[in-house]
Every structure is written in structure tokens, then in C-alpha cells.
């Protein structure tokens, strides 16, 4: 059994290597045939080989007067990444919690909800990007506009999703709670909330992509640190190697982020049923 699964893993790994190797190989081959220049689309061996040189650009202290210089390049890289990640996490958490609260309040207090819901529905389709000038007017430059925009990217979606999920909670749950003498508040906190959280968490994960995109653009337009500022800097100065390295870093961080949320979902929301089934291969 276990040797079978090890064998399975090895085959998977070999195929992974072949696939990625083929992808990189085509990239390198077209480059070496001279189809495009390194200034245009540098192949992996060039931009990865330039890595030690490029790491210095992660240090924004030279651009920002008064900021202490990072002790090493790796420190600078860590600082840039963590600036972005902290903004995403703060914005996501605020948006998720306030969205769930707003959605529940809209359904809990009927009159208040009827008064609030149309305005929320009106504001929801405004792309978070359109809020950018407002975010900058309101919060200036720094962490706040980026967090605000991540918040916006999640808040309205989660609010509307929470309402939809509350409406879709099985009637049986509510009836049983009522028969057992639960008050309205108890029903909301102990029955409805755990019933809607798994669905909302999935929606949060789906929107992680958008939130991650918003933070990068907010950083490039309304901040002077973070990965978004780095990519924009690379684009402005026409540094293709730095562009590719920025892409790699953003890809890796995005991947880790998604795996983390997946893990949290599995651990914390353990009562979600897992969907199974498959076609014959």
C-alpha cells in the first residue's frame, strides 16, 4: 500500500519535471534561436542568474528618505514581501468579519436590512480599483489605502454572499432550533453562523485572487513599499530581469497564501463535507 503510494508520488514527480522542463526548454530554445532578445523576454537562466544583482532593488530605503537601510538584501526581500502580505491579511480579515456581521445584521433586523441592502447592492458592483482615488484622498500614502482597497474587494462580496447563504440555510435546522426553544439570537449564533461559514470561506478563497491583485495595484499607485511598488518600478525603469523575478516572487507568495487558506479551511471548518466522485480515466 505504502510502496504503491510512493511509486505513485515518484511518477507524479517525474511527470512534473518533464512538464516544467518542456516548458522551460521551449522558452530557452526559442530564445537561443534568436526569436526575441533578452531585453524583451529574458529566459530563466538569464533572469535567475541575475538574481544576486537584482535583490538590491527590493530595498526601498534609498528611495524613502528617513527609512533605515535593510541590513542585507535578504532582509530587504523579506521586508518587501511581508509589507504586502500584512496588508492583504489585514484587509481580508477586516472585510470577512465585517462582511459576515453586516450580512447577518441585514437579515436579523428586518427593517434595518431592507433599508441598508439596496445601498449595499448599489455599491457592490463598483470595481475596487475605482475606489483608488478615494482611498488616496481619504488615507494618503502608506498602509491604509492598500488595506482599505483589499477590504473593499472582499467586504461587499462577503456581505451579499452571507445574505444568500443565510437564505439558503436548510429550513429543518431552523425548525429544530425553534422546537428546542432557541431564541432568535441563539438561532443566529449557534445554527446559522456555523452553517454559513464554510460557504463564505470558499468564497473568500475564490476572491483571494482579486484581493491579491488589488493590493499590488494599490501599492504601485498609493504606496512606496511592497511587491506592487517593486513591479511598477521594474516596469517604469524597463528592467526585464527584475520584472521576471517580481513575477516569480508574486507567484510563490500567492501559491503559499492559497495553500494556507486551504489548510485553514480544512482545519478550522472541519465540518464541511468533501465532494467526491470522478470519471473513469
Amino acid at each position: 500500500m505504502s510502496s504503491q503510494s510512493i511509486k505513485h508520488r515518484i511518477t507524479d514527480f517525474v511527470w512534473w519535471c518533464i512538464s516544467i522542463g518542456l516548458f522551460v526548454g521551449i522558452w530557452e530554445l526559442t530564445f537561443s534561436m534568436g526569436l526575441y532578445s533578452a531585453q524583451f523576454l529574458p529566459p530563466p537562466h538569464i533572469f535567475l542568474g541575475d538574481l544576486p544583482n537584482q535583490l538590491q532593488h527590493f530595498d526601498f530605503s534609498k528611495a524613502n528618505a528617513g527609512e533605515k537601510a535593510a541590513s542585507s538584501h535578504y532582509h530587504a526581500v523579506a521586508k518587501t514581501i511581508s509589507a504586502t502580505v500584512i496588508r492583504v491579511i489585514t484587509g481580508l480579515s477586516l472585510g470577512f468579519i465585517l462582511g459576515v456581521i453586516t450580512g447577518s445584521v441585514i437579515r436579523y433586523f428586518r427593517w434595518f436590512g431592507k433599508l441598508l441592502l439596496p445601498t449595499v447592492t448599489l455599491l457592490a458592483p463598483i470595481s475596487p480599483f475605482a475606489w483608488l482615488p478615494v482611498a488616496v484622498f481619504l488615507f494618503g500614502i502608506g498602509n491604509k489605502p492598500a488595506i482599505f482597497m483589499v477590504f473593499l474587494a472582499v467586504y461587499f462580496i462577503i456581505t451579499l454572499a452571507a445574505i444568500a447563504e443565510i437564505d439558503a440555510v436548510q429550513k429543518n435546522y431552523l425548525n429544530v432550533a425553534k422546537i428546542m426553544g432557541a431564541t432568535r439570537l441563539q438561532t443566529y449564533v449557534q445554527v446559522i453562523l456555523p452553517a454559513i461559514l464554510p460557504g463564505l470561506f470558499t468564497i473568500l478563497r475564490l476572491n483571494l485572487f482579486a484581493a491579491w491583485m488589488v493590493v499590488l495595484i494599490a501599492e504601485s499607485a498609493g504606496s512606496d513599499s511592497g511587491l506592487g511598488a517593486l513591479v511598477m518600478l521594474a516596469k517604469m525603469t524597463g528592467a526585464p530581469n527584475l520584472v521576471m523575478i517580481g513575477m516569480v516572487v508574486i507567484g510563490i507568495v500567492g501559491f503559499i497564501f492559497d495553500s494556507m487558506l486551504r489548510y485553514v479551511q480544512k482545519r478550522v471548518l472541519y465540518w464541511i463535507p468533501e465532494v467526491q466522485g470522478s470519471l473513469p480515466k
Partner: protein
Amino acid sequence: MSSMSNAYKVPGRLAKFASAAIWWIASVSLFISIWELCWYMKWANPMLFPPPHLFLQDLYFVGKLFDKSTRLGNPTAGLIVWTIAKTIGASTLRVLIGLCLAFVGSLLIGIAIRFSPLFGRLVLPVINLLAPVSPIAWLPVAMLIFGLGNAPAIFLVYIALFFIMTLATLSLIDSLPIAYAQVARIMGGTRLQIFVQVVLPAILPGLFVVLRLNLFAAWMIVLIAEAVGVGGGLGLVVMIARNTFDSQLAFFTMFLIGAVGFVMDMGLREIQRRVLYWAT
């Protein structure tokens, strides 16, 4: 039960619609009047938060900023409303073309991955590798390859959707009830027939929902690409508003972007209802 509390003698649907409309008007007018009140009481700085009557009344002045020809020193081209419509059209068209290409592309690649195991093993790891890269990171690459204009914006919409939707196609295929394939096989369907006549119609509705969920991201990436300067569109206007600290223009553009986003979502919803009628 609660609908009985409406003691009107009108058909239920009409009453429901009327009550929704009344609540809508009440809610939105409350929101706007609070905003206007803040302005009237001088709590909100009109330079930063102009109330709706201010940013909507200056249509002529704001509309001029949408006109690229004035910046090149040409005479203003036609009506203000027409200029604004052209700007909106440029952005919308980019989103729609990108959406269509990504939908078809991811459907084809996704089905091909499951249809041919060899192809899948070669391609899937690359897709998994590239999927978490944010489209923003692709932005400089898009501009290096395609330069300016429509092509990089459409490419970015494609990138924003293609990887997600290919992975969604795979998970939809994998979660199909096995009975479908078994029935098709018992009835003598070949592998190709099963994929075209059973799998494809079974996953289309789900994939369309995924498309609708990601419309938001696609719409945003076009605005961002325009803001960075692929040329024209609503994103550019947002950037002008931010750089010139023109709050009237900012709020007016927000209003337009919200309206367009709403209409696009409605449109996709309608298509979903009409075309994919077999989904429940």
C-alpha cells in the same frame, strides 16, 4: 405568511416588486441625503467628497476630461455623452473579448487535459505553476510583448481567467457523477462521444458560474491595464483623477464603473438563464 401582511388586492408578484422598489428608493435616498447633509453641514470637504448633485451636474466639464483629442490639441470630437460612451465602450469591449477567448480556451485545454492523459501530464504542472501568479505581475510582460493598445489589455483578461477556469474545468469534470459516464458507456458511447455529448453539457453551466464570479477580477485588470497606460478607457480616467486630485471626476468615474459592472453582471446572468437553460 408574511406576504399576507400586504393587504393590497394586487397580484403577489406586482406587490412584491412595488415593495422592493419602494425600499430601494428609501434606502438609496437615505444614503444620498446623509451624504448631502454632511456636505450641507460642512462636515465633508467638497474638494474630497463632493455630494452626488455636484459630481453629476458638471457633466460637461467632467466629460471633457474623457476626450483624448483635446489633449492632442485637436478640436473636441462631437458630443460629450458620445465621448464618454466611447471611453466606456473601449473598456467594455476589451473585457468581453478577453472573457470569450478565456472561456473557449480554458474549456478546450481543460477537456483536452482530461481527454488525453499524456497531454494532461505534460501541461497540467505548468498550469498549476502559473496559476497563482497575479495578472498584475503579467502586466509588464504584456506590455513588453504587445506594446500599447487593445492587445495587452485583452491578453491580461485572458491571463486573469484562463488558469483559474482551466482548473475549474478540471474540478468540474472530476466531480461529475460517475453514473453519467457509465450510462453513456452502456449505451455504447465512445470516449469522444462521452466527452462531447455528456461531459461538455454537464460542465458548461458550472463553468459559466465560475466565469461570472471572475468577471469582477477581469473587469479590474482591464481598468488597471488602462491606468498603467495601454491607452484610453475608464482606467485611465481613474488615474487622471487620482493624479490631479480631482474628486468630482473620481466619483463620476466610480458611478460609471459601478453602472457598467452592474450591467455586465446582469448580462451574464441573463445569458446564463437563456442559453444554459438545462442547469437548475
